[in-house]
């Protein structure tokens, strides 16, 4: 077991002033990892092997080993290859990547360059959600600095490796955070998720091999190169190692993004890191990884820590480690309706079960919220979640169905109390 989280020193967003300035970044050892991999000591293969060994699990929610994902890219055939960085974080409860854009953009840029080198990509796009206007500007100026210093562009550091790096603003659609939908959006099309197979590694942007990584995932790459896979693997939880940016929001005294090792106990995060539940209220529930992850009741949290295994055992998921803390005064019906409203609003409308299912869920929840629901509506809701889950092209239907199913199951009494007596006899 790794050292206690309390003694952890941040590495993704270290406490160094003006780190977003490239000179400060370089002074603190920045771009050394890039120089290292471009030197003769490293090959593209060995970079991928090192990252694979470090087991950086994708921070965008799916938790897939980043190095393994890179290894799916086919052999170069002389045509263009792309790295698409997903900075479209738009799920309620998730707001970690913008910290990197703001406080340590060069770490992400350096990681992307290493990734592009390892996969022999010629172009890098960073897709940033449209609402992050200021952060897009920050990224642009960081990219300009890196271009000026020769870290991006033609023949980087005399290595013969060339790459271009572009920011691309989203236009306000949550669905564009889904990786293939993001590719469509990057191509200038309507953000509809693509049917897989073919997978992006085979046919991605403009039909060419493409890898999509989360911003935080890429920011971990220089750390792995500089300190080695073993160092990384010893941080935090064994099956999901590394530092994690925990976004803590909701009813806590000090909401914010905190960098800590993976596997911090949920209750420690709330009580010690975020300063406890606001106004001395009692904790009612936690949504551990963004609004799509199943809610956990306070009594389910004993001994649960923020790693994928522990959360799975407890009946939820790590997601993007964006915790939403819910106090005892919260109306769960209201909360669930608001989540359902979000997914209804954001469903792209391509697949039938999601397009019509998300709207139906929201409308029934609104009815219950207004005290006009019946108990049979709860069973209908549960039925609809089964009808939606796993029947669509992308996972948005699942993301819409899970909160409904689990919130109703875990707070059934509260929901039933709000329903009026059914006019139908219950057998």
């Amino acid at each position, binding site marked *: 077991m790794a050292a206690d989280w309390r003694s952890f020193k941040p590495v993704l967003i270290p406490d160094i002033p003006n780190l977003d300035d490239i000179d400060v970044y370089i002074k603190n050892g920045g771009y050394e990892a890039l120089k290292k991999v471009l030197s003769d000591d490293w090959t593209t293969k060995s970079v991928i092997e090192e990252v694979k060994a470090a087991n950086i699990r994708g921070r965008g929610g799916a938790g897939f080993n980043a190095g393994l994902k890179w290894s799916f890219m086919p052999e170069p055939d002389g045509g263009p290859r792309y790295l698409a960085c997903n900075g479209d974080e738009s799920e309620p409860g998730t707001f970690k990547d913008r910290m990197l854009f703001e406080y340590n953009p060069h770490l992400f840029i350096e990681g992307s360059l290493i990734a592009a080198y390892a996969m022999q990509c010629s172009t890098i796009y960073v897709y940033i959600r449209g609402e992050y206007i200021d952060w897009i500007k920050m990224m642009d100026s960081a990219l300009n600095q890196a271009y000026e210093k020769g870290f991006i562009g033609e023949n980087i550091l005399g290595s013969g490796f060339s790459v271009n790096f572009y920011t691309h603003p989203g236009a306000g659609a949550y669905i564009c955070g889904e990786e293939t939908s993001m590719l469509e959006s990057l191509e200038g099309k309507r953000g509809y998720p693509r049917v897989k197979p073919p997978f992006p590694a085979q046919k991605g942007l403009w039909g060419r091999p493409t890898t999509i990584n989360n911003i935080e995932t890429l920011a971990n790459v220089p750390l792995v190169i500089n300190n080695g896979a073993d160092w990384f693997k010893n941080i935090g939880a064994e099956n999901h190692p590394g530092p994690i940016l925990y976004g803590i929001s909701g009813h806590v005294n000090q909401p914010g993004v905190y960098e800590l090792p993976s596997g911090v106990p949920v209750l420690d995060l709330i009580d010690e890191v975020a300063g406890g539940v606001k106004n001395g209220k009692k904790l009612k529930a936690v949504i551990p990884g963004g609004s799509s992850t199943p809610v956990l009741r306070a009594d389910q949290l004993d001994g649960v820590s923020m790693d994928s295994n522990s959360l799975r055992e407890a009946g939820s998921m790590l997601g993007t480690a964006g915790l939403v803390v819910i106090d005892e005064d919260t109306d769960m019906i209201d909360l669930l309706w608001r989540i359902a409203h979000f997914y209804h609003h954001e469903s*792209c*409308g391509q697949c*039938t079960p999601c397009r019509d299912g998300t709207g139906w869920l929201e409308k029934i929840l*609104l009815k219950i919220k207004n005290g006009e629901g019946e108990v049979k509506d709860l069973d209908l809701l549960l039925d609809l979640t089964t009808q939606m889950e796993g*029947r669509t092209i992308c996972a948005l239907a699942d993301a819409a169905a899970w909160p409904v199913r689990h919130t109703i199951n875990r707070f059934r009494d509260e929901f039933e109390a709000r329903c009026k007596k059914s006019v139908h006899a219950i057998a």
Partner: protein
Amino acid sequence: MPEVFIDGKSYEFEGQPKLLQFIMDEGLELPFFCYHPSMSIPANCRQCMVKVGQPVKDRDTGEYELDENGERVIRWFPKLQTACNFDVTDGLVVKTQESDELVERAQKDNLEFILINHPLDCPICDQAGECPLQIQTYKYGPEGSRFEVKKVHKPKRVQLGPRVILDAERCINCTRCTRFADEISKSYQLTITKRGDKNYPTTAPGETFDDPYSLNTVDLCPVGALTSADFRFRARVWEMNQTPSIDVSNGKGCNIDIWTRDNQVLRITPRHNPHVNDYWMPDVGREIYPLFNDNRISRPSVILDGENQIKSSWNNAIETFGEQMEAIKPEEILAIGSAHASVEENYLFAKFGNLLGISTPLFTPHIEPGSGDGFLITDDQAPNTNGVRLLGFEETDSKQLKTAVKSSNAKMILLLSDHLIDRGVLSADDLSGKYLVMFATNESETTKKADLLFPITCVVEHAASYVNVDGRIQRSFPAKETKYTNRRLDLEMTEGRLDRYGTKFDNWVTDENKVDCLPVWDLMALIGGRLGLDITYEGGSREVIKEVSQNMPAFSGVTYERMDDELGIELDTEHQTVKS
């Protein structure tokens, strides 16, 4: 050969078919909406869900692993898969709604979702009766609805373009229309707007959907969201008769269906023919249907006092023709055939002249260079230019024809179905002093000049063949009754519900829409009889084409049976002058 197991039965396959297409090709059934064999596969309707599994192979031996009963061990996909985009592979095991309750339930669930925001206004919807959503809901859908909240409301009666109207509430967002505009007609005029259950297809702001192929989206639409501005509310589908035919609006010869009710053609839709038009046809081909109903020549006419054309009886017209012919030498007669008339009609026209010693008929192609688009609209404005060429007619241009007509030799002109004055080949003056005998279907400036006018059947009233720009001979079927034909007696004609279940005394049946005209083969028999020639064809056009195929090398082996079986026949035009 590799095999696939569908609902426990083994099927062999070749190549790399997609599962849904394979299932349909095998004559099995699976509900679907968005899939179309000629367009990309978006897999967005999620209706064709099936359960699929792969047999497990031993890694070392490559043999299939067997369970204790000796059956192959199957590794099932964790989720149901859409069949439309699923590749059929060797040993694949598929369970459809026929053999798996989960699949049956999933399809029902999906239809429930599709229906919650669908207006269910079938009683006033044009699509009812030919609606995939309606049909599949009856077959696979849920009974009743659990939807007790408010439906989404969207724009209705939106005029997307001159010919297409959108009812966005009925739309199930299958994207067939937008894919058609992107992939087939390449006008890129349609897109989906908004998100989730609020989305619907539309044009960019200020743009009109005036794609020359726009009406194909109406056929493609699996619901009544896109309707034809012209046809909507005109007829219920089940009231009409559907008859296969050929588009005569240009030289491509798109395969079509003629939809008639009470002897009026109400609409034209494309019929699948992979060799000619696939599933599509241009809008112009559909818009010509009034030609078959309106402005038709009914009963013969003669000019009596040198000026006024008056209706005449058939006997009188034929007698007049006989008298005129007797008073004139064959070399004083000029015969002009037509690329707008069928092979059979032109053949008989030439044969008639030949028997009388009249020289080979002339014809002027009706080609407007630059009006084609390289897809289904051709420069050639006539359906049978190649047919007339292959029959050996003498091809002339406007100038040559004028000279021939105006020459003092020509005293009588026999003109088959070509409105030469209307299309500017001849002027009215060119014809002055000539005795014009015309065989035609519709009234025009040209027919007004005819001293003797015989009404003949048009493409929707007879079976006749046309050779398209690519040298493919295809044929029509009678879709409309004339005064002398009867749907119940003519075995070539289709019967609709009204024919089968109605009676002659039903109040919707009227004889008013029957034109008093004759097919050329029947007319030639009558005229021939008057002139002492034997030109009788008991079997009608079927017998005429038989004779054509025997006498004309280019048409050898051509029969209606073959045309029907092979969706038309590519003629051997190698030694003929065939231009497209």
